[in-house]
């Protein structure tokens, strides 16, 4: 049986003005378990708190009810008071007789009556309170960043700068991501490579950063502060630590007709290759699907020309196990496939290209060495049509496009148009748009410059049809402002394809038990207040894996995620919230209902042996809650049909006791 002390606060006249605090204290004295009841002007004052501490000692109290303002105000205060008095802080309950009583009711009789009832409910709850201790878990001081684009790079650098080791896992042979493929960046028009490659080098040279390129996350177990991750390092048949990146092998490789992914298939590479000159790590990789030596055992030229002896045709995939305290997802985006947009003739004509392909066409390191040439005949295009919102804002057909706005297309199209006019003043440049969206620092100015200074023709309306005719592309479009249908004979059509999360994100989310929205973007823990955290504790989000973003936004989110990670890693121990779910193994059916509603992936299952009534044993599947991961929402407690799952601090019997007390 508890020995409960009740402390009724006047809050000056805030409470005492409409609640007869003495009557409340008097009435609660007779409640079961109550051994002491008092009232005081300001319970939250030092004097008030001392009064509680004294009473705990004098009356050997085991539980405390404070009838005062909202628990959102002073629950923490009185928990500390209880702790100071030698009580478990979770033996305190607050009856909210200010915000929810004295301030909303006018007359003394009503207020007093309600305050007594609220007090009784709190007493009924405290009677069933049990001391709770927050669980503690150690923190592994190492972070994992999944994805080596600008988001991953920035996050890794920031974390490493704070002194914590970081591993980057990148599925491609090099880090750099999409930004490495870009030519210039809006709105400042600096060269992407010029600002990205120094960062890539920083990463490569940072003593706290390890890069696992050509690698993927295989499996994740554990929880915040204590993730166990298995990383699959795919065989690249080149010893990373030995290869100097000299490129002799690339030169001599006889298999020269492999579409070059880095240039989006617009030119070819060899079977052994280095994606681009500034690749990090600058190490060759053998494409096993293309290499004759690996496929048929015939060739071996690269091994002969490699003076460092880095080639190893027998290399196998390798699994690396490592412990991490935090995981940052930075898996990025891809343009969607244009295959389904027949009206734009993407598959019919080489001269209909996506914007990313346009980036490569204008890039000095690209397939045309920076000269803008038509892919079909390598002639200089004179009329270029840019089409915006291809597959974005597309609500009608989920299999074709995306319902959301891809956010970056308006700006990069303005950039493309402007640069084209700048370099080739003899070209006609048309941009067909639905809306031009330019929220961002210097963004609208940039777009207006394209129109006003560079003479880019912006036409409000969509392109309906592109049909290749001879060397030309017949573009049929509408000009909504002039209410005209326009027909243009274009040389090049550039489609601003919608962007979507990388395909590797969905399986990764499953491994991380991080939640995703229907578009496969990772969901944040709170859309406004916790935008860089995933609901799964210890998993953070960086860059376009969370939603479409441009580079400045990506970098700020990347640094924000890094700050959150650093905040986690500096702690030696994680103290949990003890008000978490707990499963009663004896009653658990192992049915998985709780696991399915848990937004944090805090529930796992294990087989456990139980004694049966007839004294035999049986092995049963039961749920286990990881208190470090559980956030205490209680969704599982209702999903559980047997009531095996209960929430500490808000237990079934406690809430029912409150209901009873209120209703009697």
């Amino acid at each position, binding site marked *: 049986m508890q020995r409960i002390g009740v402390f009724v606060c006047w809050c000056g006249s805030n409470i005492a003005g409409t609640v007869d605090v003495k009557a409340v204290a008097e009435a609660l004295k*007779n409640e*079961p378990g109550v051994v002491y009841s008092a009232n005081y002007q300001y319970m939250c004052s030092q004097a008030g708190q001392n009064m509680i501490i004294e009473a705990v000692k004098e009356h050997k109290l085991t539980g405390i009810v404070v009838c005062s303002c909202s628990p959102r105000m002073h629950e923490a205060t009185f928990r500390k008071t209880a702790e100071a008095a030698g009580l478990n802080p979770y033996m305190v309950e607050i009856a909210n007789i200010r915000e929810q009583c004295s301030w909303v009711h006018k007359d003394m009789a009503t207020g007093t009556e309600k305050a007594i009832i609220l007090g009784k409910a709190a007493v009924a709850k405290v009677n069933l309170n049990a001391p709770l201790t927050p669980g503690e878990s150690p923190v592994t001081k190492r972070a994992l960043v999944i994805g080596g684009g600008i988001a991953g790079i920035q996050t890794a650098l920031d974390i490493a700068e704070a002194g914590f080791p970081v591993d980057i896992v990148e599925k491609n042979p090099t880090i750099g991501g999409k930004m490495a493929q870009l030519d210039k960046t809006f709105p400042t028009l600096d060269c992407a490579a010029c600002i990205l490659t120094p960062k890539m080098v920083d990463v490569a040279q940072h003593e706290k950063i390890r890069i696992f390129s050509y690698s993927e996350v295989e499996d994740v177990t554990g929880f915040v502060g204590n993730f166990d991750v298995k990383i699959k390092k795919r065989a690249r048949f080149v010893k990373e630590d030995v290869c100097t990146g000299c490129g002799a092998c690339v030169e001599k490789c006889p298999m020269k007709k492999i579409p070059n992914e880095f240039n989006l298939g617009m030119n070819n590479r060899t079977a052994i290759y280095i994606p681009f000159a500034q690749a990090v790590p600058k190490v060759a990789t053998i494409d096993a699907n293309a290499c004759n030596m690996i496929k048929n055992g015939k060739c071996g030229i690269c091994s002969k020309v490699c003076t460092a002896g880095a080639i190893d045709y027998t290399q196998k995939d390798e699994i690396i196990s490592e412990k991490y305290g935090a995981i940052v997802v930075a898996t990025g985006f891809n343009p969607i496939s244009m295959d389904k947009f027949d009206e734009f003739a993407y598959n019919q004509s080489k001269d209909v290209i996506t914007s990313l392909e346009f980036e490569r066409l204008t890039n000095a390191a690209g397939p045309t060495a920076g000269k803008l040439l038509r892919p079909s005949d390598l002639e200089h295009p004179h009329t270029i049509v840019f089409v915006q919102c291809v597959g974005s804002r597309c609500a009608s057909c989920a299999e074709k496009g995306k319902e959301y706005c891809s956010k970056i297309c308006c700006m990069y199209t303005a950039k493309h148009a402007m640069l084209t006019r700048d370099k080739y003043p003899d070209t006609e440049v048309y941009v067909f748009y639905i809306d031009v969206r330019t929220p961002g620092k210097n963004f609208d100015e940039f777009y207006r410059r394209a129109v006003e200074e560079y003479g880019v023709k912006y036409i409000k309306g969509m392109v309906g049809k592109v049909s290749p005719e001879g060397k030309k592309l017949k573009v049929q479009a509408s000009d909504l402002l002039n209410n005209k249908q326009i027909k243009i004979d274009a040389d090049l059509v550039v489609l601003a394809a919608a962007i979507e999360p990388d395909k590797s994100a969905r399986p990764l989310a499953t491994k991380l038990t991080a939640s995703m929205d229907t578009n496969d973007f990772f969901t944040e823990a709170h859309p406004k207040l916790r935008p860089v955290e995933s609901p799964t504790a210890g998993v953070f989000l960086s860059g376009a894996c969370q939603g479409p973003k441009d580079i400045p936004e990506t970098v700020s989110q990347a640094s924000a995620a890094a700050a959150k990670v650093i905040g986690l890693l500096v702690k030696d121990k994680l103290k949990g919230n003890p008000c978490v779910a707990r499963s009663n193994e004896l009653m658990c059916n192992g049915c998985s209902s709780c696991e399915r509603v848990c937004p944090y992936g805090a529930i796992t299952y294990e087989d456990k042996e139980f004694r049966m*009534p*007839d*004294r035999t044993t049986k092995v049963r599947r039961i749920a286990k809650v990881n208190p470090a991961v559980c956030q205490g929402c209680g969704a599982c407690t209702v999903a559980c049909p047997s009531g095996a799952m209960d929430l500490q601090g808000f237990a079934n019997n406690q809430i029912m006791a409150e209901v*009873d007390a209120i209703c*009697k």
Partner: protein
Amino acid sequence: MRKCSIDNINDVLKALSEKIPLYLPVDRLDGKATYQKYQEGKVWSNALNTERSAKDFFFPQMENLVEFKTQGKNVEVIDIRDEKQDFIIFGVRACDVKSFEILDRVFLSQPVDTFYKSRREHGIIFSLACSKPNETCFCSVFNIDATAPAGDVTLWKTETEVFFKANTEKGEKILSEIDSLTTECGEETVNEQREKTKKILSKLPLSDLDLTNFGVGKTKALFDSPLWKEMSSTCLGCGTCTFVCPTCQCYDIKEFKVGDKVTRFRCWDSCMYSDFTKMAHGNPRLTQAERFRQRFMHKLVYYPDNNDGLFSCVGCGRCLSKCPISMNIVKVIKRVGGKENE
């Protein structure tokens, strides 16, 4: 013996119920008969028997015993027993009448259950002879004469008439009050019906049940039979058989708390339930097989052991028709008491 025309039975019921509340089998909407309080418009059912047994009248499913009220640190005990008034149960079949005797031996032996006793004293039983027993009936096995049941008054019903015969002083007194509605008659019609019914009874498929292997002193022989486990293996552990049984008499005592008031009540328990007789140390019968055995051993061995060989089954057949898996006392008698077990 007196009689009245079947057409006048409502007048009789009305007259009887004027002074004393009367309960009789009435067809529910789903066609099944239950005991309901008589009032104008209620029609006496022609069904062979009621869905639930008549034990509810003396041993209801739930009954409040006492109340406690706490005030501060004091506890006040409140006797909530209300004085029972007389009541009539009309149309009780022989099997259910016999069940009262079986319950009496439990509740009226020392220490007397005063709740039961007071109800029993106030109850006036109008029993009804059977004429069309069902294939599930086996009361004759327990030497119950379905054609002449006991009770304060015995009734026989034919297509056209209802016959009344008082067996006790109570019965005579109450019959005399409705003299004006009945006429004196001979016993020929009744005897004729009884002979006819007896013939049917003797031909009933379960009338040849052999109980020789049960009864006094058979505990040792039957207790360890492997059949208990086998036969109980698909038992669901529900309480249907015990709750429809007219002789099952186990109950649990529980409390219901509202604020400062606690009501202590008793309610039927079932030996089929996993928490049956569960105590602080746990449960003495760990598996369904043991609980299953308890039910049938109690009816067929332990009870007779303590009650001069009287079986505590009356062959009403309710458990036969109600068990969700069709497991029942007849199957137990045949298999556990039959050749298989010898």
